[in-house]
C-alpha cells in the first residue's frame, strides 16, 4: 500500500514517514503543498493520505475538497495545528476521515493510522 504525506515542513514529513513505517507502510510519496498533493493523487492510487492544513499555494482543506471532488475515496487524515472545533468539523465535512492535532504523541499517530486503515477495510 502506498501513502502520501503532505506538509510544507520537510522535518514534519520525515516525522510522519517514520510514523507510517512503524505502522507498516514504507512506500511513501511526499508533497509540500496542497496543489502538489492534488496532482499526486490524480496521478497515483494511494491507500492513505496524511494532510497538513496551513501550506503555501493551496491549503490542505482545499486539497481535500479537490481530491474528493475528483472521486478519490482513500482515507485522508488531517495532521495539523488547527485545533479549533470549527476546523475539525470543516475538515470532516470536506471529506477527511480523521483528524490529528499537532503536537501529537508519536505512539498516538501510529495507532490512529492503524485505526483508520482498519476502518477502511
Amino acid at each position, binding site marked *: 500500500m502506498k501513502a502520501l504525506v503532505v506538509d510544507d*515542513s520537510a522535518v514534519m514529513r520525515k516525522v510522519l514517514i517514520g510514523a507510517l513505517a512503524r505502522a507498516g507502510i514504507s512506500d511513501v510519496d511526499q508533497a509540500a503543498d496542497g496543489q502538489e498533493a492534488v496532482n499526486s493523487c490524480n496521478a497515483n492510487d494511494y491507500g492513505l493520505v496524511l494532510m497538513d492544513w496551513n501550506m503555501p499555494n493551496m491549503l490542505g482543506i482545499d486539497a481535500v475538497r479537490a481530491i474528493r471532488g475528483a472521486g478519490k475515496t482513500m482515507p485522508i487524515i488531517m495532521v495539523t495545528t488547527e485545533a479549533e472545533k470549527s476546523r475539525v468539523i470543516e475538515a470532516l465535512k470536506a471529506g477527511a476521515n480523521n483528524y490529528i492535532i499537532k503536537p501529537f504523541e508519536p505512539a498516538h499517530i501510529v495507532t490512529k493510522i492503524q485505526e483508520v486503515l482498519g476502518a477502511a477495510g
Partner: protein
Amino acid sequence: MVGPFERCVASETEQETVRSTRGESLVSMNVEHINPFIESVHELFETMLGINVSRGNIGVSTGSNNPREIMALIGLSGPARGAVSISFPASTALRLVEQLLGVETRVIDDTVSDGVAEVVNIIAGSAKAKFVTDGGTPIELSLPTVFRGSDFRVDYPTQSVWLEVPFNTDLGPFSMRVTFDFEESKTKEGDSA
C-alpha cells in the same frame, strides 16, 4: 484558557509584576494572554518530544542581538493580531531537530530552519485554539519565517509590547517572545474576521 499544563502558567502575582514594569504601555497586551503560549510550549516538548521543560520569569522584551540565535517567527491575524517568535541558541536548535528526527544533526542548515519553523507553527497553532471556544472564528496563522546568521538584531517599535519567557530543557535553553492583542467578541459565531 487553561489545560493540563496550567501548572506552568503565569500566576496572578507574576502577571502583576510584569504589568508594573511597563505601566500603562502594557495596556496593548493582556499579560494573562501569555499563558496559552506557555502551555503550548510544554505540550510540544513534553508530549511530542518527551523532553522536560521549565520556564524562567516572564519579562518585557526589548529585542535581541544574540548572534548565536536562530529565530522562527509566525504572525497571527483574524480575531487576534500578534506574532510569536522562538529563539534558540544554535546548540539547542541542533539538539531539537535531532530529537524530532532521531538522526545526528551537526550544522545549522535548511533542515534545522525547517524544524524550528515547525516548532513555532505548532506552538502558535496550539495556543491560538485555546482562545477560541464554542465554534468561534479561528485565529489565522501566517506561514513561519526563520532568521539565522552570525550577526542579526531584532528591534521592536516602541508602540508594541513583547513579553519574553525564557525556557530551559534537556536540549538546552531557548526563549519565546509574544506580542498579542485579542478581542474575544470577534470570535463569536456569525462574526466575520
